[in-house]
């Protein structure tokens, strides 16, 4: 990687980034923007976010620290952190291609061939190629290792049959990272799996949209019927699918990061919640005068501050001697559960107005909090449920025996 930049270089860069995002960030395009990449529902939203990502990439603020030869900026990762900070400061929209840039990209950079890196990375960064993930199946969600979608080798091709579900961006994507079963006689369920970089726009692959609890769309069920893909799509070698999936999940769950820039899920701003509480009324007085509410609110402030600082602390080996994998592994669990609780709590502030939803003119902040709360489950379920995350922390950070 490039040399660690000086403070002066970073400062210059920060000023440039600030200026750019100040000038170019559109916060209100005139329609509701998604809070996470998992809920891109309309064409309007999709087109807007795709343009936005391309624009940020072309300005050099996305993939700034990814290798130059594949379309990145080749800079030290500190620059990327600075650029992302500028995006947060100006309340920039989320990045659309989360599965590409967040997990497939790092995986390909880590383990892909030269050819794969040349082919996939740049169009991923520029949002030309959107990626999706085909891990979960109707019958196998948490038990990912039990995936049953069939991939049977036939000469230079694999023939795919089966179904994937909850595929975020599945109807928009050009590629899917796909976990499929190539060997039904393997000694254990994990050994029979293989991993593919699978083209979506081919015969034999269809999708059908699924309506989410919010009333929006965002994910699909994907059907494979004698879909034929080139054997070159195999990634990591036949039978190594489980290991590839696990490596992907390290990125997905935040245990590992190769910062690409931007964010895939809009972070909650605590001050917005404090404001909401201040402007809410209980028994004729500001809600923040209510001691119970004050106490809860304070505990959330303590939690948020801890999680934010955990992100810094996990990069400080001197404070991580005891259980080095603890903070990285608990990250998803702690953050997603907190957001769920906090957004639920924000409904309690609204008194009788908690009854409204998005679309009614009486809804507080246009129903933002309700939608945030309902959407918060996307993160406590997607990418491995909180229960599964607890198993992972218990087994891998605390050394407890496996649950069987």
């Amino acid at each position: 990687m490039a040399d660690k930049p000086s403070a002066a270089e970073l400062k210059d860069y920060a000023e440039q980034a600030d200026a750019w995002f100040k000038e170019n960030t559109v916060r209100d395009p005139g329609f509701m923007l998604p809070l996470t990449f998992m809920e891109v529902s309309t064409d309007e939203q999709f087109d807007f976010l795709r343009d936005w990502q391309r624009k940020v990439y072309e300005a050099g603020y996305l993939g700034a620290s990814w290798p130059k030869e594949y379309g990145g900026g080749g800079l030290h990762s500190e620059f990327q952190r600075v650029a992302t900070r500028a995006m947060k400061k100006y309340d920039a929209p989320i990045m659309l291609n989360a599965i590409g840039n967040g997990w497939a990209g790092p995986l390909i950079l880590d383990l892909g061939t030269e050819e794969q890196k040349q082919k996939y990375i740049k169009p991923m960064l520029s949002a030309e190629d959107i990626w999706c993930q085909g891990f979960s199946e109707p019958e196998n969600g948490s038990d990912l290792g039990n995936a049953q979608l069939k991939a049977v080798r036939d000469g230079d091709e694999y023939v795919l049959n089966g179904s994937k579900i909850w595929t975020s961006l599945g109807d928009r994507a050009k590629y899917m990272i796909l976990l499929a079963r190539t060997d039904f006689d393997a000694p254990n369920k994990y050994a029979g799996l293989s991993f593919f970089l699978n083209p979506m726009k081919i015969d034999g692959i269809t999708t059908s949209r699924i309506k989410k609890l919010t009333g929006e769309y965002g994910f699909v069920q994907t059907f494979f019927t004698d879909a034929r893909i080139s054997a070159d799509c195999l990634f990591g070698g036949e039978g190594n699918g489980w290991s590839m999936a696990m490596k992907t999940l390290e990125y997905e769950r935040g245990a590992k990061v190769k910062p690409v820039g931007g964010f895939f899920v809009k972070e909650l701003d605590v001050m917005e919640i404090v404001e909401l509480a201040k402007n809410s009324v209980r028994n004729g007085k500001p809600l923040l005068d209510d001691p119970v509410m004050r106490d809860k609110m304070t505990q959330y402030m303590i939690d948020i501050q801890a999680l934010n600082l955990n992100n810094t602390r996990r990069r400080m080996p001197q404070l991580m001697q005891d259980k080095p994998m603890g903070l990285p592994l608990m990250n998803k669990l702690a953050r997603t559960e907190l957001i769920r609780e906090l957004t639920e709590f924000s409904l309690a502030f609204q008194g009788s107005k908690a009854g409204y939803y998005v679309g009614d003119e009486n809804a507080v902040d246009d129903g933002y909090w309700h939608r945030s709360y309902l959407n918060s489950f996307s993160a406590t379920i997607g990418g491995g449920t909180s229960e599964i995350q607890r198993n992972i922390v218990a087994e891998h950070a605390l050394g407890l025996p496996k649950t069987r």
Partner: protein
Amino acid sequence: MDNLGTIGTTEEQIELMDVATNFCRDKSPVDKVRALIDDDLGYDPGIWKEIGELGWLAIAIPEAHDGVGLSMAEVVPIAEQMGRNLMSTPFGSTTLAAQALLAGGSEAQQAAWLPKIAAGAAATLALREDNGDWDLSNIDATGSVSGDNVSLSGKKQLVLWADSAELIIASVKIDGAVRFALIERSTLPEGSLRRETVIDETARSYEVTLDGVTIPADALFDAGRTRETLEKIELAAGLIHAAEMTGGAQAVIDYTLEYLKTRKQFGKIIGSYQALKHPTVNNYVEYEKARTHLYSAAHSWGEQGRGEVAVRMAAAQSHSSYSTAADRAIQFHGGFGFTHDCDAQLHRRKAILSGALIGDAAYQRSKLANLLFD
């Protein structure tokens, strides 16, 4: 929000962390901790001497008074390891007394006492009273000045390690205002100290009767500095107890994990049951939050505003995390958890005493709310 701080470490902290980890583990194995429960003094004087020789009491004392010239930030890793190993000594109370002297003592008072403390003399604070209020200014003990003397009266409670301390710094009211009085323990009349039975059996605490105690008027802190002294004491106590409780939470979680990995029921290691596994993970997550807040508080120590927010966050989080982890540890040890032999109770008791001394998590949050929202 700009009154929220960051996290960072100093080189000295990291060095002390290493030394303290080994020292406290080696010198305070749990059978020794348990043997000291029945000891009058409550600690090993040999170890106390070593702590003095290691210079740990001098850390946060300026060089001008024979100290090392660092700050409470560097005391944190030591207190953390003491808490982790249930090592009780007058270390905490002595450190707090030194901080009180630094905040409110005159040049002469500092010169008289700080070098002694730096060299290993124990000291303590006498702040709490019968009303049980955590508000340090709500007190009834009094002093009345006549000529060059002040005669004191009233009772102070929960005075830790008073029988070992050479110096007791007591809060009293003089003409309606809180003042601090330096009392040499050797001058106390016979019978002034009553050993209290406190829930944490590894600690020693005393009720101090001030009736009949007279001190010279120059043994009072300057009236003009009472407020900052009260604040400093509260924050220093919050920080040092947060460190002990964070270390304690780590220990009790590890102790429980050990059991969950070995005990079998229904033919399975009990740690494979999610009913035990998941709450243990929750406790662990809360502990890591506490440790993050602890080192953030150490890092922000001394910063106006941010320092107090960070310390109170650390105190609240460590108290709730330690209490819950120890409470669940008792439950998860089953019948054995209910016994005096199970170490879980040592931790549960210690968390209760710590909360009683500095104000529990809810109290810390109520103070925080004022800082954050008003």
